[in-house]
């Protein structure tokens, strides 16, 4: 036993060193990103020096989001620290692009934070032993409050491993009402189907100036990979794998039809040949370079903070569907808080998590209000408190996001990223004409088959 522990430490130190060396060689942190920043270095701020000395200190990492979200994270840490003296939380805001490598290095060195934000599915993290069970450190009534739609990203069986802060549709269509009006279109009604979208783009294109385009959708393989899973489901009624995860399920006319739609946008110059902004960002839309923008529901909060003049002129709706399909076109993204399996302060971590996002709904109301009602809480009590806020009446899109788009949205896929990426690559290749669509899908199927074999997916399929 003693040998095993020291061997593990030995391995950890070595790999941490290797990872650190790799990352150091690559430059500090992520190229192009600022260094992480402590959101609340509360040393000295805790009232009562003697109790501060006895406090358990835990680390909390969260990604850089929009300014209002970052502010909420900083405040919630500060409020928690001020509310009690037993646990001191040190919050660190990590640039989103630097997150993966910073976290990997910390995990390799056995220095992962006690609590951190976590997107996507939890199965891989649970299988790898990365996430700590929450049942014994978060009150059961708080866990019971998580709505059914969020359970796939919170629990495996009856064991909870994550507490979601929010759910948000990852594929929403935004449109500039003024630009639609200029093209003689009804500014209040967005396209319901792909055919309607293409017809509207045909009408809009002649009215555009230089450097303006009809639409900016996802345009590269990694973005297609995660943001179009809902569209794949809309067209095909399934996603990239068979239900038992034994084979790829992409070589079919439905997947080809989806790619044909994007190819039509590309070939007709309805979309730019190089993305004007990232999928997750809204500056191309805010600068009125595009009439339609496809992004997650979160983009509305960016419009609200950076382009307030556009807020009243922005239409919001479901992304267009395949002809005759009534299935959703979006996945429901999420951000959860998790406790690291190696934490030495699980009780303190649970206390912080429970107080901040599983406790008083008033703690969460500013988050959902300031993000322009574009995200959905996983707790009914919080949803009610947010709906009661006076500003809710001025956000008509909230009803569309919450009641029209989110309810039938599907969860993010549980299969490995490489499967999604293979589909995303096929979509980009087919759209750009780098490969015929059937060849692109055949390549994707071959790649997925390899991932199934490599990762033994048949044994990991969810029941």
């Amino acid at each position, binding site marked *: 036993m003693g040998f*095993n522990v020291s061997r*593990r430490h030995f*391995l*950890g130190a*070595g*790999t941490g*060193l*290797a*990872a650190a*060396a*790799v990352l150091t060689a*690559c*430059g500090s942190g992520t*190229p*192009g990103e600022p260094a992480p920043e402590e959101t609340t270095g509360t040393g000295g701020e805790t009232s009562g020096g003697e109790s501060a000395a006895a406090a358990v200190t835990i680390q909390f990492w969260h990604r850089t989001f929009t300014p209002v979200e970052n502010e909420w994270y900083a405040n919630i840490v500060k409020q928690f620290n001020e509310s009690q003296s037993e646990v001191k939380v040190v919050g660190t805001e990590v640039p989103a692009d630097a997150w*993966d*490598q910073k976290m*990997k290095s910390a*995990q*390799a060195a*056995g220095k992962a934070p006690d609590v951190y934000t976590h997107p996507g599915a939890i199965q*891989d*993290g649970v*299988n*790898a*032993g*990365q996430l700590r069970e929450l049942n014994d450190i978060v009150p059961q009534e708080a866990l019971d409050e998580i709505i059914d739609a969020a359970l796939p990203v919170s629990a495996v069986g009856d064991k909870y491993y994550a507490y979601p802060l929010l759910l948000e549709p990852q594929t929403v269509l935004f449109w500039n009402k003024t630009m639609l009006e200029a093209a003689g279109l009804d500014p209040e009604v967005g396209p319901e189907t792909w055919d309607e979208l293409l017809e509207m783009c045909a009408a809009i294109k002649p009215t555009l100036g230089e*450097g303006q385009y009809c639409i900016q959708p996802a*345009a*590269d*393989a*990694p973005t297609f990979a995660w943001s179009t899973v809902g569209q794949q489901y809309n067209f095909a009624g399934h996603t990239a794998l068979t239900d038992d995860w034994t084979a790829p399920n992409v070589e079919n006319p439905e997947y080809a039809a989806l790619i044909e739609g994007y190819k039509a946008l590309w070939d007709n110059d309805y979309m*730019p*040949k*190089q*993305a*004007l902004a990232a999928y997750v960002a809204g500056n191309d839309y805010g600068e009125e*370079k595009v009439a339609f923008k496809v992004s997650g529901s979160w983009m509305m909060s960016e419009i609200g903070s950076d382009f307030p003049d556009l807020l009243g002129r922005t239409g919001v709706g479901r992304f267009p569907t395949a002809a005759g399909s009534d299935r959703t076109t979006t996945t429901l993204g999420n951000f959860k808080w998790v406790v690291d*399996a*190696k934490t030495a302060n699980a009780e303190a971590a649970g206390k912080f998590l429970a107080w901040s996002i599983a406790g008083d709904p008033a703690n969460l109301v500013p988050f959902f209000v300031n993000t322009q009602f574009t995200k959905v809480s996983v707790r009914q009590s919080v949803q009610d408190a947010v709906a009661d806020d006076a500003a809710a009446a001025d956000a008509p899109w909230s009803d569309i996001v919450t009641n029209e788009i989110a309810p039938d949205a599907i969860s993010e896929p549980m299969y490995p*990223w*490489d499967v999604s990426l293979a589909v995303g*690559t096929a979509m*980009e*290749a087919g759209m*750009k004409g*780098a490969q015929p669509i059937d060849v692109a899908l055949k390549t994707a199927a071959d*790649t997925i088959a*390899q991932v199934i074999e*490599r990762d033994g997916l048949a044994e990991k399929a969810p029941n």
Partner: protein
Amino acid sequence: MSTTTELISKAEVKRLNKSKYRDTRLAFLMLAPVTIMLGIFVIYPAFQAVYLSFQDWSFYKPPEFVGWRNFTNVLSDPLFFAAIRRGFVFVLMTVPIMLVLAFLFASLVVSVGKKFATTLKVSIYIPTIISGVIASIIFVLIYDYSGGLLNATLANFDVAPIAWIGDPKWALFAIAIPAIWLGMGLTSLIMVAAMVDIPEEFYEAAAMEGANWWQKTLYITIPQMKNVILYLLITGFVASIQQFELPLVMTGGGPLDSTNLPNLFIFNHFRNDITVGYSIAAALLLFVVLGTVSALIFKVLNSEKLVD
């Protein structure tokens, strides 16, 4: 030789030996810091990496021995080989152009006056001290599809906007340009130093024989710089095939993997995979490829004679 030895007294030999051992101790002492650092940061992690490449490990559970599986996974992955091939294409796009341009620049520097040469040297070296990240961001702005400097300039000649980093046909080329720009400074200065070291008498003799610039370059300058060129070829090849920052910041490896160079391919696996075995095995295989090619270059160019 033997006569000389006889002339040195026994005491003298002892004194010389003592001095020699003192030098040896000093040499070991001076080598110690770098040896220790190499041991900690290179040798130990390298052995550790070899050990872990045979394991399945996610940092949270004890590593599980999987034999050669990580290596077979890498070797059966067409994307890995595509990344290696792309790396070689990138080397061909950057290193020869960089060497030729640096050679021409160095020739210019040694042929002009001292003050002007200093100005030239400073100006060519500036990109070297610019961070690769900053350069990447600058070039992303230059290549911007709508409003970028390059497309705006081309628009004056009625050229339609080009998706420099959005089109798989152009993207690798678009990344090669800043790579050459960043690497030119050091390469040029090393070449200048090598050219300055060539004895002037060689050129004077050639001039007396009526040799022109081309003949002097072909028969004196290049042969005399053979070792330097070999050094620049090897370091340029290794640096180029390992280029990481430019594609990471400018394109993320896209579009359609057209700029997914070997190191970025490995890094993305390290970042995304739940276990680290695949990325370590891929890194070790890349090490083998780099070592083999470097050895081949040494063998083909055969520099030993000139070193002697």
